[in-house]
């Protein structure tokens, strides 16, 4: 609850242009709720920046609903999504698949076609008033229905009907099911909507990579950034042999401190970047970009601009042969279900409000009871509560896979992540097993299950 209060205050502060970085009052909360600073840009009246607890700073409309875009993606058999200045999300009701998912052809009638919503019904456009004027990167584009729509950096903006409260980012995520390194499967997850936000306030030498652990800081080349316990604020103690293994990230000599970024002078005229006052390095032995391997060396840590909210109490982190996964209290690996359909408007099918035929075919060839055996829900205690917005509990009718009312006969009280139930794997026998990872179409990223990876040094899932 304390965190939610802080979040609301963050929204209020952030909404005013030029506000300082969010500061939390409580020490314990501060450790978990440091939020990512962002560039204060001019924006049209009626829009604001909300610092979401997982996605970081995102744009929202006047009601606090997060804004999304739909970038064009090259799928296996053709593109989907939107080009700059050309919104294609309309009130067209699609009834068949498009055949963009190799090797399967198009023209097949979609599940629950009678009630399938249109794109606009799921993704209401951020309409612009007839007299609206462009502001900075915010422009106005013409829709095919004759209306005007706001765009940011040329891509049309939408809200999601799945977002209910200010700070919700349920409609889409910056973290692809493929993982932040892009994986091996092209854009096989489909053309997905992504939350849109202002640039992170950081030097051009750096970038952010979203992970389940949080928003990881890397160099522009993708190398992980580290900090060292033996350094002090404003001073580096890593020299000689240390500096050969941990390469200081040097800053231009004329750079000035900005926000959370400053420099330390390693020797006269040689400046090193510091984030939140501590010098930053790359690890020369890191094999992957980015990597968490440097964090295995005692005293060294990956750097996150914003950590993800902690999972529910009692959840655990398990080592396995490729890294680490999130698990329940018994050590059983948690799985996320991913699904995006193959219609031209590329609707997600991983939410309980969406057709469950996709999931039921993968987990049990249409048999819901078999699904319960192979991919049981993660049951929550009756009084279970989440400390974050990204984790929640909900009631599910296992026969339909859709939401149930509390107390409904046969309903299950289950844990959910981003408003979607999470699962266990019936084949996992011991902590660290991930027998159901990559289970489903395109290794579980198009219609299937992926383990909740926190670290993956040897696969292509999380890092």
């Amino acid at each position, binding site marked *: 609850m304390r965190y939610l209060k802080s979040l609301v205050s963050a929204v209020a502060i952030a909404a005013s242009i030029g506000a300082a970085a969010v500061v939390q009052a409580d020490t314990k909360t501060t*450790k978990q709720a440091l939020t990512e600073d962002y560039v204060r840009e001019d924006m049209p009246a009626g829009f604001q920046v909300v610092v979401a607890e997982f996605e970081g700073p995102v744009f929202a409309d006047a009601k606090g609903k997060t804004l999304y875009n739909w970038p064009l993606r090259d799928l*296996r058999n053709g593109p989907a999504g939107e080009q700059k200045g050309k919104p294609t999300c309309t009130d067209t009701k699609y009834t068949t*698949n498009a055949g963009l*998912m*190799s*090797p*399967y*052809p198009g*023209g*097949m*009638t*979609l*599940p629950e076609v009678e009630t399938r919503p249109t794109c606009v019904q799921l993704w209401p456009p951020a309409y612009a008033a007839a007299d609206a004027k462009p502001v900075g990167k915010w422009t106005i584009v013409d829709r095919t229905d004759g209306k005007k729509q706001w765009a940011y950096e040329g891509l049309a903006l939408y809200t999601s009907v799945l977002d209910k409260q200010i700070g919700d980012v349920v409609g889409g995520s910056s973290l692809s099911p493929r993982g932040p390194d892009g994986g*091996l*499967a092209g854009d096989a997850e489909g053309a997905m909507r992504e939350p849109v936000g202002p640039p992170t306030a950081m030097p051009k030498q750096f970038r952010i990579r979203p992970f389940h*652990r*949080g928003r990881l800081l890397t160099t522009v080349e993708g190398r992980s950034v580290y900090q060292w316990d033996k350094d002090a604020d404003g001073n580096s103690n890593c020299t000689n*042999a240390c500096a050969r293994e941990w390469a200081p990230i040097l800053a231009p000599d004329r750079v000035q401190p900005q926000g959370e970024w400053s420099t330390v002078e390693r020797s006269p005229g040689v400046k090193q970047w510091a984030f939140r006052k501590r010098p930053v390095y790359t690890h020369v*032995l890191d*094999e*992957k970009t980015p990597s*968490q391997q440097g*964090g*295995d*060396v005692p005293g060294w*840590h*990956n750097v996150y601009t914003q*950590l993800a909210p*902690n999972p529910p109490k009692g959840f655990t*982190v398990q*080592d396995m*042969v*490729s*890294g*680490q996964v999130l698990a329940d209290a018994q050590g059983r690996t948690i799985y996320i279900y991913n699904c995006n359909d*193959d219609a031209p408007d590329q609707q997600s099918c991983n939410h309980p409000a969406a057709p469950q*035929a*996709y999931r039921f*075919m*993968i*987990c049990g*060839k*249409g048999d819901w009871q*078999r699904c319960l055996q192979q991919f049981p829900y993660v049951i929550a205690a009756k009084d279970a509560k989440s400390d974050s917005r990204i984790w929640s509990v909900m009631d599910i009718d296992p026969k339909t896979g859709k939401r149930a009312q509390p107390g409904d006969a046969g309903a299950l009280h289950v844990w959910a992540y981003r408003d979607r139930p999470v699962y266990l794997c019936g*084949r996992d026998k011991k902590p660290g097993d*991930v*027998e159901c*990872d*990559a*289970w*489903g*179409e*395109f*290794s*579980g990223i198009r219609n*299937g299950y992926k383990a909740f990876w*926190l670290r993956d*040094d*040897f*696969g292509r899932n999380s890092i």
Partner: protein
Amino acid sequence: MTGFVSAKTWRSTTAVIALVAMTAGADGAAADDAALADHKIGYTMVNKAVAIYQTADGKAECPNGLNDGPREQFDKLYPRDGTSRTLLETQLEREGEIWNPSLEKEKLPFYEAQGKTAIGLNLDGKVGPNDYTSPTGEKGIDNQMYRSVGCVASYRGPDGSYRHFTESYMQQFDFNRTLLELTDVESLANDSDVTVSVYRGLDPLLLDSAGEHIPGGSQRADHRWGKEFIQHIKGKIVDGVLTTEPTDVFLPETLARGVAKQFIHAWRVQLKLSPEGAEGLMGGYVDVERLYNLLGQNWATHFRSYGQESLPSEYRLFRKNADGYPDPKTGEMTAISTAWEVKFQQVFIMHPPTSVATAKPAKQDDIAR
């Protein structure tokens, strides 16, 4: 056994050691001496392919031609004749079959490899009715995997897509190496008692400017995450050929998106050794369910279509031809005899200092600071 190096050595000599090795390879004798320093030599796997016996035109082993793959089967099951069809009864039905395979009779034919000749090893020491004879005349060859996939284009040489991508990914990605380290070696020609240790390697393969594998690289053995892969097995070298005692192993799988390992019962190798590399066969009984999941998880229907590989069809043959490790309750065989043709290059294997091997990784609470 190999001693652990200091942390400083571990971190600083990786690059240098490759240069030393290349310099030492100036003449054969020197290379031999260098390769057997401290009575040990290391190798890293650079290629692996299911052993497939192929005649020139393939007609002897595949008289019906090669099997249909996902695209061909889909077109036959759901002809484009103007019939209105749903996604549920077509694409989702096929994917549901992949992830929930059955042993019901298939609607379409799927052919086993024919003939009595196969490449492989005699895994059980017997000559059974379903065993093959090797191309060199050895009887009792156990390779029921060949019977199952010998007529699937993906597995056939020289450029079946699974073969191609297995090698390609080994070069492309610097993880999941299979390392063999021979210790207590007196001679690469003959030694009746050597120890063969299996590790997962952490480093890229060494290639020349033409993209060809070359010996003399270095590989760090993964003692931190890869404990499950570590095995110490007894072996012997006779006339330059290394053989090992059968041992249950997990081997790293490079072509991996999900579970990056394969479980093999009674695994062993038969490798012609040289100071520069090793080449030959490895064999064992592959756990059918783990193999089937691995194939599905690592290689989407789209990719399997390249090599006309229908997973549900293969599942039926894996289960039908399984010939080892009966289920204690049902008696049904759970594993299938398999042989792989493998190639290794010589590498210098480095072991981490204890502090790295036993480092506690960052947990969720540790990073929330």
